[in-house]
Structures are given as structure tokens and as C-alpha cells.
């Protein structure tokens, strides 16, 4: 399996930083991009020691207690009111949160 081959030292280039920032939904300044490129590079380089370990057939950890019961009786109980749940939202209207437009209106779907 590929994971058992020590990977090549990760190259954190500007394109990788831009890609990860996009996945992270972080609009970084040019200064932040330069800083994180250098820092992530050195952090990941120091973590290469993990790649040298012989892990044999050790599986990935399964955290938590698998016996912990996650089911309860199907009985309705009180929960947050809509008012409480929305009380902290930056913008609401008629019981909904309001956000900027998701899809640009180009007029093609006009009624």
C-alpha cells in the first residue's frame, strides 16, 4: 500500500497553499500565504519522522467507546426554540438566516 512507503518530503509551494486555503474557506493575505507556506513546510518536514516508523499491521485508531449507546427511546423531548436558535445569527428574516446570494441572477431563469 502506498501509505507504507515513506512519502517524498512534502513540497509546500504557493499553489498548494492557495489550494488548501480555498478548501479551508480562508481568504488569506499575501503575507499570510508566504508565512504559512514557510511554516507548513517546516512543520510537515519535521513530521516526516512518522514516515520512518514500521507500523506493521497496526490499524487506524478507533476513538471512543464503541459500546457507548447512541440510541434512545423515540420520545420527543424539548429542544431549542427557533427564536433561541436564531438569536445569535448576524442576519435573520421570518425565522430564517439571511446570507448573500448563492447563485448569480443572470436573468435567464426569470419567471
Amino acid at each position, binding site marked *: 500500500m502506498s501509505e507504507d512507503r515513506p512519502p517524498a518530503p512534502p513540497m509546500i509551494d504557493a499553489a498548494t497553499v492557495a489550494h488548501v486555503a480555498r*478548501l479551508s474557506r480562508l481568504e488569506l493575505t499575501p503575507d499570510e500565504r508566504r508565512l504559512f507556506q514557510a511554516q507548513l513546510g517546516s512543520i*510537515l518536514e519535521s513530521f516526516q519522522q512518522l514516515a520512518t516508523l514500521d507500523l506493521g499491521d497496526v490499524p487506524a485508531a478507533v476513538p471512543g467507546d464503541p459500546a457507548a449507546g447512541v440510541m434512545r427511546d423515540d420520545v420527543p423531548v424539548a429542544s431549542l426554540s427557533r427564536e433561541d436558535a436564531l438569536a445569535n445569527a448576524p442576519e435573520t428574516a421570518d425565522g430564517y438566516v439571511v446570507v448573500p446570494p448563492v447563485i448569480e441572477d443572470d436573468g435567464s431563469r426569470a419567471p
Partner: protein
Amino acid sequence: MTGPHPASPADRPAWDLRACYRRGELSPSEVVDGVLRRIEAVEPQVRAYLYLDADAARREAAQWDRAAGAEDAPPLAGVPVALKDNLCTRGVPTTAGSRVLAGFRPPYDATVVTRLRRAGAIVLGKTNCDEFAMGSSTENSAFGPTRNPWDPDRVPGGSSGGSAAAVAAGEATLALGSDTGGSIREPGAFCGVVGLKPTYGRVSRYGLIAFASSLDQIGPFARDVRDAALLLREIAGRDPADATSAGVEVPDYPALLTGRVAGLRLGVVREFLQDGLDPGVAGAVGEAIRALERSGARRVDVSLPHAPYALPAYYIVAPAEASSNLARYAGVLYGHRTTRAADLIGMYARTRDEGFGAEVKRRIMLGTYALSAGYYDAFYLRAQRVRELIRREFAQALESVDVLVGPVAPTPAFPLGERVEDPLEMYLADVFTVPLNLAGLPGVSVPCGFAGDLPVGLQIAGRAFDEATVLNTAYALERALPAPGRRPRVVTAAERRSSPA
């Protein structure tokens, strides 16, 4: 406790307050007033609190003035406590040290808060912490650092630095923190107080603002072991609102403190006593181990060869979980929203850039990278396998010994600003604490001496759900060490004004 009664009620432990209430020697109002006076005196320097409601605390205290002395008073009746600001408190500002949560007032209490109130505790306020509990010095708080009560030029540790400093300086009798990679134990050691990370699943995480959900645990800070045991008993136990909380019986921890360790097998972890340890820390830890041996514990040298790999494994797993948990801060449901965005994705990205500090962004980036296509196997999956290896290694070691001991951190409290520019250097403060989070095991930091004028903590780790043995070992050490414990002496603002310039 054998020493004389401290002069101020602000320095008395909770178990002693209870006895005083019962004898009618003190009232909760007097205690809260004493603590508030202490806060007024030292807070300008320490800055442990992000939010303090003195009036509410006085009101709550007055409500307990008659009842706290009753035979059937709840266990923490009239005891002032502080809460780390990543614990949700209904209607009370909760920021987790982040600008992105400025103005947030949770619509519910964390389960631990509900339990504390039910136990009669008086909530003083919310304490400073590294942003979203990511850090080892409290310098990553968006609202400025907390200072170590023992030395104002040094960090209190982190991420629960405000809670540790508050308890150390007498600004609270007890406090709660959270520990994802050492965030209770390391500040406990740096501030000279007892700090316990319970077994994963021992304490409900409901209402704890999530950082890394498979590692986070809430736990107590106290000035002595008995108080830590008392507070743990009140917050522990199964909670239907947290599916990972365990249905394991909660013992009466204070009642189990015998201080007897004769025959206890004390595993001394070789990998935790390697080169690079501060000589003052090594000296105090060595002396503590010898003190436990003199009390009858049997020293067994233990090797955990993979323990040094815990740090990189942790700093992949925790950021990976954080990158997912922190996706919710996007300016939609709560907290900060940018005013400069044309579309939804732009609003998310700009809100997050404005709201998060550098370390949080760094960890989101690191975690996202480790989970992204092409790197998942090499980083995230591999780290989870190392985690399993470490979990097995610790479980195996704890078959032949009863507890594992070593230093909490390689150094005592370091100077403010020393490590903020170098994330890797900061991460090294966690090298001895992260293995327990990865393995899910309980560990306590108990004051064990000094490196110069700075406190040192001994870490005592135990089997899953065996906090009783961990606490009893700490209790035995507390009794074996020279009493009475030194307390920090914070120079107050008034004293500074009256001293010649």
C-alpha cells in the same frame, strides 16, 4: 492540610470552605467578597478573566448564605468557580478566545455548568484561553495574554491559562478547563496548581466548544488534590447529550484519597526523562519520585519507545479534526460576519480570515492539507495508526504498573513572546502531555517543587477510568512533600503605585 489557615478566604480550598460554612465561621458572601477583592487587586496584572459578573456572583452568594451551612447542602454550595471561555454559558458571553465569536451568547449551558450550578457552585466568570484552545501559552487569545502569577513576564501555560492563573492567584477557588493535548496539565504545572485531564468519556463534552472531538476532555483545576477530586466527582458521569460520555460508575473520589501508596507500582517513563529536560524540572521530578518511593511506592522503569512519535501524530490528528469542527464559523449562525462580501463563498472566506487568529488558521490549513486528496494516507491515516500503536503501548505498560509518572512539560513557564514566532517550538511544550490524549487516558499535573522560583508539575497517568488511583498517588505526593505549599505573591496595582518609581 496541616498548615495554618490562610489569611484570606480567597486562598482557602473548597473542602475547607464547606467546613467553615457548616461551623458558621464564614458565609458565601464573605468568601465571594474576598475573592472579588483579590480579583480587583491582582487582575490588572494577571488578566485571567475575559468576563466577570461580580453582581451576579454576589447575588448568588447571598442566596447561599443561609443554606450553605446546612447538613444537606449540595457539595459545592457557596464555592466560587471560574469557567474557561470555551464552555457555553446560557446568556453569558462565550468567545473561546476568538474574535469570530465576539458577541456570542449561547442559548444553553454546557452539561458541566448545569452540574456545577446544581452542586451549588457560584460562577464568577469566564477565563482567558488560547483561541479555540489551540496553544500552550494563552498568547493565542484574541484578547491578549494572561500572565503567570509567579512571574508576570512569563506565560501561565495554555490553553487553559486563565483558569490555572485564576486558581493560583486566589481569583477563584476552583476552575474548569479543557485538555486536548495538555491544555489543563501544562498550565497547571506552570501555575503551581493541580490540573486533571480525565479519561476520554469521563466528563460530558456537551457545550464545550469543539476543537478536536476525539481528544477534548473537560477537567478540574484546584489548589490541592482533595479539591480536584471533589470537583471531578461533581462533573463526571454519563450524559445523554454526549454520545461519547461513558456509562461508567463515578466513584466518590474524595473519599478514596487515603494517601497510602505502599506497594503501588510506579512506572517511571524513560522516554520522558531524556536529554533536553530543564535541569530544574528534572531535579524536582526526580525528588518527587523518590518521595513517593519513600512512601512505599515501588519504582518500575518503563520504556514507551513510541511515545516520542505522539507529538507529530497529535499535530496531524488534532488539526484535522479542528479543520472540520471550525467549518461552522462562517458568519451564518453566530458570531462575526464580514461586511465586505458579494457572494456566499466570499463571505465565508473573508469572515474567517477576519475572525481567526494566526494559529487557528495555521491549524485549519495543516488539518485540511492532511485530509486532502493525495495526502490523506501519508499523513492523517498514518497518524491514526501511530495513535493506535501508542494506545496499545500505554495499555500494555499499565498492565504491569499502576501509574506512569514523568514531567508535565520539558521546561517551567517560559517568557512571554519567546515562542510566538515559532509554532514548532511552541508545540514542543506538549511533548509529554499529548500521548495521554491520543491514548484517551487520565492524567494529573500535581505541583512537585520548583525550578528556581517557578513551579514544576509531576504528571501521573493511569488506566482508563482509574482517576481514583491517579488522584490518590497525587495526594500521597502532596502529603510527602514539604508543607505548606508556597503560593504566588502577585504585586498589586496599589502596591506598584506606592512603590518608588
